[in-house]
């Protein structure tokens, strides 16, 4: 089984549009095993029951932002080893710094192209 087929990914974004864009990118890359959630809370709840390999999450979300979700994931044994890519609209050093401390695997600046997204994932999991 190739890595693409094996890889299971969750997309987290409160905006339907951006969620759709990331899902569409996954589709074009050829990653089929994709689930998505519209907020950090439900993402965390779902991941507790059904973990994935990699979470691709937006940073800017109400109630629980991307980094808070990452923190929650790292705190719980069942989800601590899930990979995490943060998608953000701003190159904010403080955010990157905090992400690094929390064990964020990679990040991507919006707007992104499909090859950029692919490269970003490959840097974490290896060649797709």
């Amino acid at each position: 089984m190739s890595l693409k087929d094996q890889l299971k990914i969750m997309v987290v974004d409160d905006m339907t549009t951006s969620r759709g864009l990331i899902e569409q990118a996954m589709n074009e890359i050829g990653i089929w095993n994709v689930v998505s959630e519209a907020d950090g809370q439900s993402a965390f709840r779902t991941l507790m029951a059904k973990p994935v390999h990699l979470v691709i999450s937006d940073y800017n979300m109400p109630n629980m932002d991307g980094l808070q979700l990452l923190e929650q994931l790292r705190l719980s044994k069942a989800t601590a080893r899930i990979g995490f890519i943060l998608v953000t609209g701003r190159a904010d050093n403080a955010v990157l710094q905090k992400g690094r401390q929390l064990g964020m695997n990679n990040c991507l600046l919006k707007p992104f192209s499909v090859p950029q997204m692919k490269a970003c994932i490959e840097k974490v999991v290896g060649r797709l």
Partner: protein
Amino acid sequence: MSALLDGFFEECGELLESVFEGLSALEADGGDQEAVNAVFRAVHSIKGGAGAFGLEALVAFSHVLENALDAFRSGAAQIGSKEVQLLYEAGDHLSDLVERAARGQVSGGEMPDLHRALEGICGAVDQEEDAGLDFQPLTLDILPLEPEPAAGFDIVFRPHATLFENGHEPALMLRELGELGAIDVVADLSALPTLDAGLAKTPVLGWQIGLESDCHRAQIAEVFEFAEGLCDLEIIARDAEGLKVEDPVTQSDIDRPEVVERAPARETIRVDLARVDRLINIVGELVISEAMLRQAMTEIPVAKYGPIEAAMGQFRQLSGQLQESVLAIRAQPVKGLFQRMSRIVREAAREAGKEARLVTHGSATEVDRTVVERLVDPLTHMIRNAVDHGLEDSDRRQASGKASTGTVTLSAVHRSGRVVIELQDDGGGIDRERVRQIAIDKGLVGESDELSDAEIDNLLFRPGFSTRSEVSNLSGRGVGMDVVKSEIQALGGRVSIHSEFGVGTTVTISLPLTLAVMEGMVVETAGEILVVPTTALRETFKASNAPLHALGAGGHVLNRRDGLVPVFDLGSALGFRTAPGEYGDHSLLLVETEAGRRVAFAVDRIRDQREVVIKGLQQNYQEIPGVAAATILGDGRIALIVDADQLAEPAVRGGAELYGGAGYVQ
């Protein structure tokens, strides 16, 4: 891609709503951090989406706005009332850019001054942004997802009596379990008492369940979530060979994610409007067929009627509820509409060189979507009027001891099955002497006419009336208050104006909650069945008992305590017959128009009063003067719904000519 793009613009609408919501919170209590955050988040989301779709102008502007908001957020810049106004302006511009982008205009429409003003705020923020992300990726080994999915589970489930006492049903849980995979359920009958031992008082059944599924344990636990503590439950995972792969875990051991519960966001789905309309139409038909059924029942002998009656009552109640619920789908809060109006106030004030603010009440009040949409134009015009003509300029306000900023208050409230929207300004009020003089100059009223205050105020709604000699950029856009009035009336609404000199003016609009049904009086005349909307109806009586006086050739007036009311044959007005010379057996309906004029319609017979489903004529036929719409009655016949206001006009005019006076005779 285009579906995503459409979705983006739709989402932008919601995001812009949050922007203005945040701004009004900022305006109300200064530097609320959460309000700034909310505005920032919304603008940021717009920028993100716009970037993905290459909407350059939108990206450029939301970027600088975002930076300014970030400066406020981080405390690098202070937010005061001047800044809030700037942000409002920026929000308005952002709305414009979104609208332009939605129309396919990717660039253009920039406002350099606004851009610079925002840049001035965020000047303090460092602009290292475009340097890109400097981040060392952390690699990850892709292992099979843990825990290794089990091939199946063995579950032992034994309910306690409390489970049944709490109203839970094991069969439903087992069925739900069956949705996770193939299940094999064996009932444990060992505790079942023999027949002669009598009835068991405590539950005696248990089940052993084999589940073949690669689902996670938590999903199984979820099925039994509500049975927690009300049963014995064991879930044991096994691998393909049927061996236990884990120690048994009992219900209490299952770790539950400790998540702080927040109030759940309202769950919504997006539905094509056409589907909702179809549903509304069907329910409308259902209401009609219910009426038909009721009609048919009146012909059944009472002995047989009785048993059906109860069922019929329930049916009627249900169809009523169904109708209400369906209409509620189309209902939406007036919030969006009110927010748009706050922009109109800002713009109008800027153009008129006045200071004004909008205060809204009851923005959660829900009204039919179509009503909301069709209120935009009349309300816009009225708000412009209020700012332009109603409010005085700051100097004059201060001279008369008022706050220098004028206040326009917009409120919505549900009142007896209608929604009442009130627009109030704290301006100078209507200058009645001037209004009267203008009306005389324009020939709308005679020099010697005695007019009450209310009548003078209502002159504003007359076609061709404008108090400003010069056409101002604001209100003078080719629509007068007469157009506002007819638009409101087209929605089945009423509009009235009340003013106190020096204190302010209030315009009140009363609207039906929906355009789909209305209350009407069903009447018969000239062999036709007609419906008169009850909103216009004031009183009904028999012509034979009424103080009728013949007047002129075939004309009649009704003598009322407070004046004479012209009588007018409904059948002949609509061209069904020529007017009868005498009214004997006829019934009279006293109708009052929006302008407060009264006229009595003569009809052959009044049948009953009921709710009717409105079927538009325009789209199926054409507009007919005096007819507002049509409906289908219980017996399947089609009845025209009368436009009382329109019909009353010629009658009143006729009367006015007869008496040489204005309107009706006092």
